[in-house]
């Protein structure tokens, strides 16, 4: 089983985590209906470096993992808002 490193609790097997989808930035207020629909409905499936939400269940910690979805390598993990601190 794959390992993932929670920035607060350390390295754990994937079974302790819940995947929360890709981190996506909503379009600015006042966007068109089309832009909004693109944001909520369309996903970019092409493999590459993605930022993803992950949740460590036993501690209730949400964090971001930068993962290469082509190689399944996790480059780094950090708490949202603290990406610069590492």
């Amino acid at each position: 089983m794959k390992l993932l490193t929670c920035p607060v609790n350390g390295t754990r097997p994937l079974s302790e985590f819940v995947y929360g989808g890709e981190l996506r930035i909503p379009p600015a207020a006042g966007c068109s209906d089309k832009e909004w629909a693109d944001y909520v409905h369309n996903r970019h499936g092409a493999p590459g470096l993605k930022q993803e939400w992950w949740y460590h269940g036993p501690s209730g910690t949400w964090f971001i993992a930068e993962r290469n979805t082509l190689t399944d390598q996790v480059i780094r993990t950090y708490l949202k808002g603290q990406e610069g601190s590492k």
Partner: protein
Amino acid sequence: MSARLTKQQGEWINRAAVVKFSFEGRGFSGFEGDTITSALWANGEKVLGRSFKYHRPRGILSLANHDVNVMLTDGLDTNIRGDVAPVSNGAVFEAVNTDGGVRKDKSRIIDSIAPLLPVGFYYKAFHTPKKMFPFWENVIRKAAGLGVVNFNYPRITKPKQHIHCDVLVVGAGASGLSAAIEAGKQGLRVVLVDENAQLGGSLGFDWGGSQESGKLLGELSAEVQALPNIQVITSAYAAGYYPDHLIPVVTKDGMVKVRAGAVVMASGAFEQPPVFRNNDIPGVMLGSAAQRLLHRYGVKPFEHGVVFTANDYGYRVAHDLLEAGVKVAALIDLRTEVDAALPAGLARRGVKTLQGSAVYEVEPASDKFSVKAVVVAPYNADSAEADTGSKTRIECDGVAMCAGWAPAANLLYQAGTAMRYDYGVHQFVPNKLPAGIFAAGRVNGVYALADKLADGKRAAVAAMRHIGKDLAEAASVPVSASAQSHPYPIVMHAKGKNFVDFDEDIQVKDFINAAKEGFDNIELMKRFTTVGMGPSQGKHSNMNAIRILARLRGVPVEQIGTTTSRPFFHPTPIGHLGGRGFHPHRTTPLHDVNAALGAVFTDVGPWKRAAYYTVPGLGVQDTILAEVEAVRSKAGIIDSSSFGKIEVHGPEAGVFLERFFTGLYADMAVGESRYTMLLDETGVVVDDGLAHRLEEELFYLTSGTSNAAAVYREMQRWQQLWQLDIGLVNVTGSYAAINIAGPLARQVLSGLVNFNLGEQQPHSAREAEIAGVPVRLLRVAFVSDSTYELHVPTTQAAFVWEQVMRAGSSLGLKPFGTDAQRILRLEMGHAMPGIDTDGLTNPLEIGAQHAIAMDKPDFIGKRSLEIIAKRPLKKALVAFALNPGYAGEMPFECNLVIRNGEIEGRVTSIAYSRTVGRVIGFAYVAPQHSAVGSAFEIRTDGGAMAPATVVPFHFLASQH
């Protein structure tokens, strides 16, 4: 006649401990440490099993855990592998694949009609006429499969353990021992795994007539034992590779999941048989099998045999046979060019060598139980034909065969290793290894003993460097420059029975036929011929199959490629995979109280909830309706402890709720309760519940059971983005919830609470005390207009429940379960997210406009709702009732609403309500047909059309 030798150096058997057992009704004795096969062979028994397809007699092939024609049952377990399973006193063994025992197997007739049964015959032969197929299917199914499952198998827990180490070494042969010692000396945590009962790999049996290997093994074993940081696991196989170096190791009693910092694969190589007619007769075995018999168990493989080799290894085997006193009639070498020292060495011991020759065929005894002679003829390597014009016959009773090796690279493949075919050593070797994985020894193409030791050390150093040890890189060890395997050890024979795959009885001609039919890709050929699909999973057959296919297609072997071996690469009992079996579930603090009242429990998410309470003499349906009736006429009590409960504290709690849910909360008065609805960003309904303002800065949120954990998770995520000044606390497990519902509910509680219940308005919440226990008292209306919900600290729930039951005993208070609750909420007209909505339902479709404050600055899903609101509705949820007195087939959830032959919608909830006197439910219909009074039809499972009418949601209120 006993084939047991005198005591051998390093043997695995304990001659002081005699073991008695029976095989097919006859008694035998062996020694402690014997396998079933070695003990039987020592007793002169050579027919140990029957082959899978043709039911040919079979004996020893590998003695290395791949002898799948010798599988037995002891009455409890089935498919016990005789070549590796130990004998035990009193054990009673039978072969699995016979009809009447190994000697008199009635299915042996199949062997004589084999020409009628080519590979793939059953795909073609039995499909016409069609009506006969069920008959043939039955026959084929009976013939297929090995062993019989014992349905009275006792539950034996096979635990799974997790262990952690710095370096895992797979394989305890020369290179594996060397690697483990090297890493062990650095003080690292090392795990060393080997499938054999004892350490050593080929050091323990491949002696080539000398005692040196045995001595070295003793020294290496002592070194391992002297290092307590090396954990040795024997009689266990590393069964698969999973990401980040997780390797399940299967032992007899369970499974050990090893998480390693780095892995050294020193898994060795599987010896491969040459292919010639009757290469399966008992007495014909791999050279390494003969050596194992000699040195592990002190048993002669045969009395006077021949060695048929296609590499130098066969000469080592011949010397070992001679040392043990076995007569070697001749060594037949497929090759024309051989290092002259090899035949000279044998000549000195009186053994003649026939170079450039092949065993054309084995001449079996008439019962095919043993070898009578071999027919030898000059071999043409280009055509793979023997020159039968000049054949000679050599009488013998056994053949040791050596043609080369296939790397035991299964785990390397699984880990993503790129392999290449090396034309020096003539085998596949690792080309590019994944990070943290290192190969050593034969699997790496390294064969000479000194090279294997050096390669193990080199791999260990590389593994330690990978996990951060500051060590200098060790010199690389080259792949063996001389061929250890023959590029094409195949001898054609017009009459066939030259087996490539012993598991599935696949002959050379089966490959030729498969290629002719167009199955000339390795994956297609595998599926058509079933090569490699038997219990040994191609360990002795895949390499030859690849070589044959390469020649058929006229391409080099590396262009054929190999098939993927999935984890677990070795057959593993289901019980091992199941393990102890953990089934986490949540119980409420009232679980035993409910059980004592006759509750029958049901799973709701992770929770065990009371579905209904049995009443002696009353059927389930009537029991549930009686529970409903108690709530409608008097009072009912239900354990709702599984409900989601979340506290939101802090000055910005109201702001948080308004962003998270669809409604308005900041203006709520303390003590007020309000409906909450959660959407996702696409505007789809996710969940609903209630928000109770208990204090200025404390909202208490309650919701249904199944979504609670996921909703709390979402709250945490949004809070991380919003960073409001709040404290979120999931108190689901901290509070039990008890609902008292019905016209007498207030009366039940009035004597228990410390205030005038009449003053508590609907949709309100307050803190109170019951018999000295602090409770949160919520006035809700989910199952009845008159419902009080008590939220009680978990550890005091049983106490409070008892006080309420006592107070209600004279008023007819009855417990009710989730089944009655379903009907009650339906009568109240409450649609439930997840039941009456699906992953596409927006709030406008369920008529929830009242719960949505579109004039708020923002909430999750608002922007999508703005878009949805501009479009025409596609469907609408309605409440309906079947016509009074409807006596047809009862419709169910998910039955379709049909209008003019077209699907218009579906039923989401439906039940018979005795209170209303009709079948009632919710369904989706077209918006233009959603007005009260509209009629529609529901198609039942049986195809009947049940007429229904749209009614107001609150069925009870609409009755009056």
